[in-house]
């Protein structure tokens, strides 16, 4: 039977790579990304190699003539060998003379065990489990040990606090992977998750157990000891003016209406309302609002509509506005007529999101709760504007709570389609609290997952602070531009759930497959 005995013979070293050829009886190609172990029992040494290049070779080079003449070839002629070039990942050696062991030619290599791969990767004791995968000639598959069990790796938990970018086309497995990470953060790390849902019902059914129909998924769950189960402490927050369509299977009992309150909202959050104006101009609105919030408002008209009327009146007048900066300095600013009109237009469209009587106003205490997943649904008309303001407000409040050490709950913030909330041209300065979070996440135990179809959607100011990049099927050039080694063909052939990545503190892991989240994913079909 094929694959009963699988061994590779060391030929030697060339250009820093160990070259190997399969021994007869090895009935296939060991895919790129696999791991091999060579044991030198005499020296008590062990070497673990990662397959970097792999190909088929035909030792007998048969002629095509016999087939051309419609005769059958000799099957003995059809023997193939697997030629491998592998990188030496880990040496386990007792030598202490400062030299590095030779890997003698003609040594036998075999597929590495889980324990050996753990050693090679410097695996952690905790962290979300993923499968190590390989791509070869458009085939995606899990790396398996000699007994056929898939090899896994644990992504380091630290990874969450060094920011993650997840990219992929629709249907590539990006959202499912993000759900898996969110579920791990809540259930295993006992943290809190805040996810911004921007389309469909992507994150709105995490209270329900996933339905797996694909035997591969069932088998993967069995291997990891996972069973389908919904998340327990789970709340969906949605703007009062954009009701959730319950026909899509969202549980009404986990949904709560939210509104924005002009009395407590962070003025800087209003910058999220403005589209199509310069960073500098957009910075004036929070200062104008802060003045109004503190001193300029009429006691009987302390609503967002009241602010819009105030702004409108000033715009009609001399367009000169009193301001209070974030540092508390009083000032005056005169806006261009066009800027006023633009701001006013955006303010009008946001009136509905404020001051709804039957809705609650979200505070950090709602989010920073151990083992809770909060989803803010901003799918629907105007949702991104609402989300943009709410997200800024919540981030500000979370950072403040963390700074003041009022809360010690770890938090993971998942922002889908981040460009809907932060313009791709947004500078580091204009990112405000998001920039603070990204740069100080480790100390504050705040992590962010940016999920996007295209890495170019990421705000410029964030480009250098994301340490983990995970690419599902997407445009190869964008992945390559961010330092991920992948060919166009490999990227094009990635199946759902498979990804290429650079992982914080796990540099050896290049291709991986995420297990399906056990909550909130529903496979259709038989």
């Amino acid at each position, binding site marked *: 039977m094929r694959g009963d005995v699988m061994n590779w013979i060391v030929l030697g070293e060339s250009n820093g790579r160990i070259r190997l050829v399969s021994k*007869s009886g090895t009935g296939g190609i060991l895919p790129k990304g696999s791991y091999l172990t060579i044991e030198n029992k005499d020296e008590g040494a062990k070497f673990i190699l990662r397959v970097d290049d792999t190909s088929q070779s035909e030792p*007998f080079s*048969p*002629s*095509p*003539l*016999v087939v051309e*003449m419609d*005769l*059958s*070839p*000799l099957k*003995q*002629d059809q*023997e193939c060998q697997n030629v491998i070039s592998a990188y030496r990942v880990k040496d386990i050696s007792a030598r202490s003379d400062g030299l590095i062991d030779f890997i003698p030619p003609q040594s036998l290599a075999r597929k590495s065990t889980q324990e050996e791969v753990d050693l090679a990767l410097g695996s952690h004791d905790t962290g979300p489990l993923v499968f190590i995968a390989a791509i070869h000639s458009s085939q995606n598959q899990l790396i398996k040990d000699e007994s056929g069990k898939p090899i896994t790796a644990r992504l380091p938990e630290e990874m969450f606090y060094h920011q993650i970018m997840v990219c992929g086309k629709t249907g590539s497995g990006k959202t499912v992977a993000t759900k898996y990470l969110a579920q791990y953060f809540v259930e295993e790390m006992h943290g809190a998750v805040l996810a911004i849902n921007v389309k469909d019902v992507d994150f709105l059914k995490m209270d329900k157990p996933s339905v797996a129909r694909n035997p591969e998924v069932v088998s993967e769950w069995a291997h990891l000891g996972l069973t389908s189960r919904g998340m327990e402490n789970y709340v969906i927050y949605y703007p009062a003016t954009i009701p959730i369509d319950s026909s899509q299977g969202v549980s009404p009992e986990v949904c709560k209406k939210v509104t924005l309150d002009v009395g407590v909202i962070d003025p800087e959050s209003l910058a999220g309302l403005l589209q199509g104006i310069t960073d500098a101009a957009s910075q004036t609105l929070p200062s104008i609002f802060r003045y109004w919030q503190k001193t300029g408002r009429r006691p009987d008209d302390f609503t967002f509509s009241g602010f819009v009327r105030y702004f409108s009146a000033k715009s009609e007048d001399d367009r000169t506005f009193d301001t209070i900066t974030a540092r508390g300095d009083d000032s005056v600013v005169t806006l261009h007529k066009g800027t006023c009109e633009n701001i006013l237009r955006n303010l009008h469209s946001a009136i509905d999101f404020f001051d709804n009587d039957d809705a609650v106003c979200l505070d950090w205490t709602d989010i920073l709760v151990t083992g809770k997943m909060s989803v803010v649904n901003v799918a629907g008309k105007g949702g991104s504007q609402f989300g943009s303001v709410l997200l800024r407000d919540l981030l500000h409040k979370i950072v403040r709570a963390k700074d003041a050490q009022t809360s010690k709950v770890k938090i993971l913030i998942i922002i889908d389609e981040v460009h809907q909330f932060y313009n791709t041209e947004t500078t580091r300065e204009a990112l405000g609290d998001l920039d603070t979070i990204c740069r100080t996440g480790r100390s504050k135990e705040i992590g962010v997952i940016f999920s996007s179809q295209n890495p170019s959607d990421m705000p410029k100011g964030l480009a250098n602070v994301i340490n983990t990049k995970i690419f599902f099927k997407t445009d190869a050039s964008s992945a390559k531009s961010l330092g991920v080694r992948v060919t166009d063909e490999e990227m094009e052939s990635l199946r759902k759930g498979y990804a290429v990545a650079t992982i914080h503190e796990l540099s050896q892991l290049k291709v991986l497959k995420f297990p399906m989240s056990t909550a909130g994913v529903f496979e259709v079909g038989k």
Partner: protein
Amino acid sequence: MDFSWVSSGPPEGRVTNLEPIGGYGLDARRGQSLMNDPKTLVSAYDESINKYNALEGTAFFTSHSIVHVAQSGYEPLNLLAMYFYTRSKELQGKSPHLTFSMNPSMDSQKDYLKDKLDFILSNAVKNSVLLIDGPIIAGDVYTTFMSSVPEFVSRGILPVFFVKNSDSNMVIDNFSELGSKYNSDLHWSYNALKTGQRSSFFRYVDRRNARNAKVFCYMKAMDVSPVRVEFFVESFEQHSSSIPLVMDMLHYLTIVQGDDHNPQVRPIAIAEMYARETLKLVNFQRLMRESGLHPTMNQERFAW
């Protein structure tokens, strides 16, 4: 190295045709069926030789190679042998591994043939077809091969010998109507045969020693120079009912090889590959140089 002694024709002999002279069609498809039959056992032999000429003597490094065409794939067996022949008694006295010889050419052929025969007899499979590169009889030393015939027969082995390059004229010299028209038997057979045909079988008997006999024919599997296929007389008689089918199989195996620059049956080509590869296991030239031997001028200039 010079292999001309291997392919030179036998001493004068008598040739008779066993069937009407002419072309006989070969059926590759029937040969394919025989080859695919799990009961058919096929092996092949070939060798590769390296020679080193030194002032002190001559070294031969030979890889004898047998390949069994097993169901699971080609199964190779190789014997590596090295001999050093010298006319210096003094030198020979220094090591038991050196051979004193006043006629290194003859003695090397004898050792080579002895190793070849022992290796083949030790590893040939009972009731198999054994394909061997080279002629049955070529020069005086080759007649020793004939002594093994009873053992091949008793074990049901059908040895089939292949001669690709030969200036032999056994056929044209013995049939007066052909004599003046052709340069050699290969010249005659190339013109007489169509692609996919064999010639009639002929029986050759040495006039001086009737024990040196063989049955042969020419096979033109491709539109290039034919090859001579030879059998021991006793083996030919033992397997006479299967011989036509075996010829079909040889035709099929030549097509499998598919090389019109070097037409030969595929298993021999594989045996040759293993012979060449295993010869590389030892860096013979370097070994000779490092052993303190002094190469002849030709060895230095034309070693490779």
